[in-house]
């Protein structure tokens, strides 16, 4: 039990305090205990070189990834397996990545507004494909330029990921007009292939 000496009063926004009172009443906690818990967590977040807002935003993105059937795999394991499979079932493997991208593209278009689609897609990939060091989508003269740098990918994994990205873009009515793929680097150019109704 904290004594009065161990406590400090701090100013907070009144609307937040009112919400906290409601939450603590619902959860059967004291406001004091709840506040301490929040501050401990916030300090831990700052220790991880981030902040509670960023952590929450990242969590929401990760939840979206989890809901769409994504799993966490060590990259060496993935590279090893893709390399093995590439030699014998290249077409099937690339098709599966492409189909998966198509599905993801459709899923994103259901989840997010059409107007912001490209920006949100870019943001989603930047946050969740964390092994990618550079990812950008730029609209230039009626075409879309996509650049992806993934230095830890083998040539085979890079190509598989390129198919995934093409699948996403094709499902949103873009067609590829140029594609370049080197180990760890993907450069794609698209144009809209039909007007949406």
């Amino acid at each position, binding site marked *: 039990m904290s004594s009065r000496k161990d*406590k*400090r009063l701090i*100013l907070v926004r009144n*609307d937040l305090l009112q919400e906290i009172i409601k939450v603590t009443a619902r959860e059967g906690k004291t406001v004091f205990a709840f506040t301490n818990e929040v501050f401990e967590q916030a300090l831990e977040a*700052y220790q991880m070189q981030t902040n*509670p*807002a960023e952590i929450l935003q990242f969590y929401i993105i990760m939840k979206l990834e989890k809901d769409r059937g994504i799993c966490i795999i*060590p990259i060496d394991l993935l590279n090893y397996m893709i390399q*093995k499979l590439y030699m014998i079932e290249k077409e099937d*493997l690339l098709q599966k990545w492409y189909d998966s991208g198509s599905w993801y593209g459709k899923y994103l278009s259901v989840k997010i507004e059409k107007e912001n689609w490209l920006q949100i897609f870019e943001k989603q990939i930047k946050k969740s494909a964390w092994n990618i060091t550079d990812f950008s989508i730029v609209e230039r003269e009626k075409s879309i330029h996509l650049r992806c740098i993934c230095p830890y990918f083998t040539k085979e994994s890079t190509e598989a990921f390129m198919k995934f990205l093409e699948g996403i873009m094709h499902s949103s009515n873009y067609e590829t007009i140029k594609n370049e793929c080197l180990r760890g680097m993907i450069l794609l150019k698209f144009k809209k292939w039909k007007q949406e109704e």
Partner: protein
Amino acid sequence: MGRKFLAAREELVKRLRNLAKNRNTTLYGLTNQALEQVLLAEDLGEELPEIIANHRVIKMAKENRSVLIPERVWHLVLEKTSEQAGDSLKKVFYDSGRWYGKYFSTLRLKASSLPEIKSFLGTIFWNISNLDLIEESNKIILKLIEPNFTLLHTQLSSTMLEGIMHSIGYATQERKITKGLVLLTFANE
């Protein structure tokens, strides 16, 4: 907007005040931001401690060069590669598990704490619907239930889990595996 006083532990307030100073912000701004986020999390039906624990593990996975890939692609890769690679695949999974476990125990001082291991496994294997660790008379029982897994996927996941547990300091005593179900018993070495 109105302001009111809120009580908190002195040592926490001190640390927050220092943090605010280092970040060129005010204690008022910093605490409001933290409270705002926790209320947002509540609205989403989540709790901040869980979110932070999750973040810690994902950060670890990021540093560990793990990637997120669609499960449907992963299943195909797994099934097809196993036809080619046979038993050598098991070793690759086991080594990956050992690497994860070593990394985890190097970074976390309380690596032997069961809830922490459980939270770590639960996040890394988030695609598994039921993954539990129970302590029973000096033994640790690991249960995995995932009805969507093929037998191969179940076996390889079990191998990876064993790799993790071995490098954390547990030895396998018993292993029961059927499609979608794993029951592993470990003893502390």
